[in-house]
């Protein structure tokens, strides 16, 4: 397979957001070892909001969230994350959709 380098952050720069400062709409519940479902989000979140800490936990920075709900559905059974829509008016603002 041809190597393709991509930076999701660069893609997100093109988007418009109204960030609700200090009120993230997604949070990861405290854990020592992430479940398989939670760990998978590091790769499959289309906005790259999830990452691993040095000590192996999964954390989320939902500022660039596209509000698709993938993480919510993948972790519904395990209950690893708390997910809500941003408050009305906040979050992604699609120019084209």
């Amino acid at each position, binding site marked *: *397979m*041809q190597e*393709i380098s*991509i930076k*999701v952050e660069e*893609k*997100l720069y*093109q*988007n418009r957001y*109204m960030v609700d400062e200090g009120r993230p709409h997604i949070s990861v519940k405290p854990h020592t070892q992430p479940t398989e*479902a939670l760990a*998978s989000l590091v*790769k*499959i979140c*289309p*906005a*790259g909001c999830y990452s691993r800490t040095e000590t192996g936990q999964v954390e989320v920075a939902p500022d660039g969230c*596209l*509000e*698709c*709900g*993938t993480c*919510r*559905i*993948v972790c*519904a059974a395990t209950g690893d994350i708390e997910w809500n*829509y*941003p*408050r*009305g*008016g906040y*979050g*992604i*603002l*699609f*120019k*084209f*959709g």
Partner: protein
Amino acid sequence: MSETFDAIVIGAGPSGNACAYVLAKSGLNVLQIERGEYSGSKNVQGAILYADALERIIPDFRDDAPLERHIVEQRMWILDDKAHVGGHYRSDAFNEERPNRYTIIRAQFDKWFNRKVREAGALVVCETTVTELIKDGKGKVIGVRTDREDGEVYADVVVMADGVNALVASRSGIKKEVAPETVALAVKEMHFLPQDVIESRFNIGEEEGVVIEVAGSVTVGMVGTAFLYTNKESIAIGIGCLVSDFAEAQVRPAFLLEKFKNHPSIKPLIAGSEVKEYAAHLIPEGGLPAVPQLYGDGWMIVGDAAQFVNAVHREGSNLAMTSGRLAAETIIEAKKAGKPMVASVLAAYKKALDDSFVIKDLHKYRRLPKVLHHNKHFFTDYPRLLSQAAETMLRVDGEDKRSKEKKVTKAFRSTRRLGGLLGDVFNLARAFR
């Protein structure tokens, strides 16, 4: 707000706008609640508009709706890493006075549709997220709670048009949570190019558009499809696969989109374009088995929230608009007859859906999601075999044609064996019957 509305519609996408418009047009007192800054700001689609579904709601929509191009050509491509095989259908018959399908840009189109809803007399409140349903002592839905201060509003009936995640219904316990194998995650980019460049690249006239639907090795073995749609001055390009497959294969969605954009059959079509947006959205793919209970005491579900997508024909917005309209018509009938908005009365909505193309089409393809889920080789082996077969037969290299045919047959038989090939034919034929 202490007043009680005839109906509350949650969400302002195609199903919510259709429902609120029809309700308001009939004179009912309607409140529509949208969490985005405006209708469309949270919505994502390819996007194709199916004229028929909208015509039944707003017959003269062509007068002022923001439409991009009417579609005159459909390309269906099966990709392996280097090639595409496929079929094209292009017809001048699609250049008609009232074209059948258009490309649209959802943020603009939804804004227009929602303006029509307001003009019809509905009260539209944006930047407000509905958090849950309010029920009375007997469990009948009587209103909604929002994230606004004192944000409780009441109505005779609540229509949930809140999209694929259907949070309101699942958090109120009237619908099961969406399962990862019943939704696809699609990522999409908007690529801008001058209008004349698009028209010469796709061999089309000023208003004409092309749709390319793609399956094959671009989804790296996952169940999914990709697409490329021509707008007036932009190209929408995207790819989607089942969420369960993404989770299992651990593929980065943005990587998948990049791989598709770099495919030799796609790359020249978008060369030199400027990307202005990157979006992601879920698409219901579970078909009929994933459709939830659609009505109850004081509530109804429409559109993506009800999983109304025909995954085979890539139709969704028309099912959404039609379900929104049918829900509204059910409410209007009940009001006229002075009946309460209880399950036994709202059941007419389900009956109307059953009699429409919405449920009929979902019923026709009810077996397909399972067949594809258990036969991943449709997305891997067959694209490769088809491409190899075409290349073998087209390359002129001194080998006789019968030997070439034998080579092709042997490749199919050694990959899938005779039993496998027959089984595939049977399963697919049955799933499409």
